[in-house]
């Protein structure tokens, strides 16, 4: 680590502003956990009148919860796989080549996250209505993969930009063909970025609700199941328990993605 970071001290104002932001971001999450244990299941009273762990048992006994969870996992896995293939292809093409209309392609890749989710949702809905496509598992995946591509693309192209083209040239000069070079030089270099992008895509899909409302029909992913639970006046803590489980599931990929992509400022061969 550079030494001048520790020598420079942040002022009190800046430090407290930064910590205010961190607390603002994370305190509400504690409330989710706290209310998962409350004995009050009809209102939002604070402080909770009593604490209990019964809501975990109640949630685990609900078949619809497990169905929704399993549907979300499958959707996220398929969306992630599609996004990883398409995102990597796009990143490789955009990194290696200059061509006419390159800027438009960048825009096209970014568009699904640059435009509000509701636009993606209602567009797919309108297209399905015109084409009389029935809602299935695959209509959900279709929507999710579309906005996941950009996450993988961003991660992979960032890594490509940081790795040195000299490595690829050296590999080719030493007699490897393109496939060998890809397998032994490019892929090991990309692997962690690819994995990180895939994990983030998984988490993104797992959590999505806005687009899903328009493409799901009768099927209920976990977020849709939760939205439905929230409207019910009883057993409110069940939603919190589901939320705690979801957080536990998505926390690991996020931490993983972070550790996979940090410390990559100095990719082998980048010092020219």
């Amino acid at each position, binding site marked *: 680590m550079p030494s001048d970071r520790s020598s420079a001290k942040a002022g009190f104002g800046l430090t407290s502003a930064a910590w205010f*932001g961190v607390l603002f971001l994370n305190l509400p999450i504690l409330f989710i956990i706290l209310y998962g244990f409350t004995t009050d299941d009809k209102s939002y009273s604070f402080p909770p009148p009593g604490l209990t762990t019964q809501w975990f048992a109640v949630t685990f006994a609900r078949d619809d919860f497990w169905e929704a969870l399993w549907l979300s996992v499958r959707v996220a896995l398929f969306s992630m796989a599609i996004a990883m293939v398409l995102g990597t292809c796009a990143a490789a093409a955009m990194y290696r*080549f200059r061509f006419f209309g390159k800027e438009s*392609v960048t825009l096209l890749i970014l568009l699904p*996250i640059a435009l509000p989710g509701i*636009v993606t949702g209602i567009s797919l809905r309108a297209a399905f209505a015109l084409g009389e496509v029935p809602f299935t598992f695959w209509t959900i995946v279709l929507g999710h993969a579309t906005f996941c591509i950009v996450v993988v693309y961003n991660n992979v192209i960032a890594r490509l930009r940081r790795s040195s083209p000299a490595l690829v040239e050296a590999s080719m000069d030493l007699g490897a063909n*393109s496939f060998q070079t890809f397998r032994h030089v490019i892929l090991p270099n990309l692997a962690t970025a690819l994995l990180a992008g895939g994990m983030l895509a998984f988490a993104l899909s797992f959590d999505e609700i806005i687009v899903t409302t328009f493409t799901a029909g009768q099927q209920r992913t976990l977020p849709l199941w939760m939205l439905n639970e929230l409207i019910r006046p009883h057993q409110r803590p069940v939603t919190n328990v589901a939320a705690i489980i979801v957080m536990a599931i998505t926390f690991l990929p996020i931490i993983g993605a972070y550790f996979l992509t940090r410390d990559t400022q100095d990719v082998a061969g980048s010092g020219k």
Partner: protein
Amino acid sequence: MAISTSLKQPSTGLAGRISTYLYTRPRMLLLLLLVPPLLWLGIIYLGSLFSLLLQSFFQLDDFTGRVVMQPTIDNYLRLFSWTNASIIGRTAGMAAIVTLIAAAIAFPLAYYMARYAGSRMKALFYVAVMLPLWSNYLVRVYAWKLILAKEGAIHWVVNHIGLGDVLDWILTLPVVEGSSLSTSYIGTTITFVYIWLPYMILPIQAALERVPRSLIEASSDLGAKPGETFRKVILPLSIPGVAAGSIFTFSLTLGDYIIPQMIGSSRPFIGQAVYQFQGTSGDIPMAAAFAMVPIAIMAVYLAVAKRFGAFDAL
């Protein structure tokens, strides 16, 4: 010719031949790489956007409940009715306010993270920003419902420190008005800022990380005080990051329909209008026309943001 055989050697075998073929014809490789993602995005995404545009010129027959495929601009004219225009104005105004507040909270955090935090602290901050971003969206909105409710934590704290009357007075102000924080615009704004804040922090932090240390050293070597260096070197270089972050906060606020539905006064936002036209009344053409509004606003916004270098900071 020994040299030529040794050069040809790697090209034997099927993989070798394909490899050589692609190497000598880079355009072919480009096509192979680019066509799958372009087909996907082109057909599924642009195709749907186009069908949305098409639908927006159709009309729902009120009697039969079926869509009449005859081009008309009636749906667009209906956007200018007082009710619909005020929905659009309310949403755009909220998006602007949320973006400003988010930038104000995000900047110091990102600046601290990029310039002062050591490696451990930086990892901690990174997790603190990412954890809420990837925690379930719906549940985070719901968390604010718990916190902002009349019987919830904020009202409880405010009442205990004796400021209950002040809060009640604020809640009677025009525009803000609501019986509790969770049914007022204040609640909606806080929740929007909270949900989209990480999208603002990350690009700003990335932009600040990219400011070369040598530039800052040069600035202080040339006699600039820390404040001057900040204003004249760091701040201008971080603008692309702020612009990139604002694309997300602005766009996401424009299209959201869950937050204003769960927290705030019952006055609708664009997203809710789209959702209701599509769902309750089955009027996909009108929903489509309404969905064109955020697209149009974002087109203008993206053009402006591009000028500030936002696309390089994404």
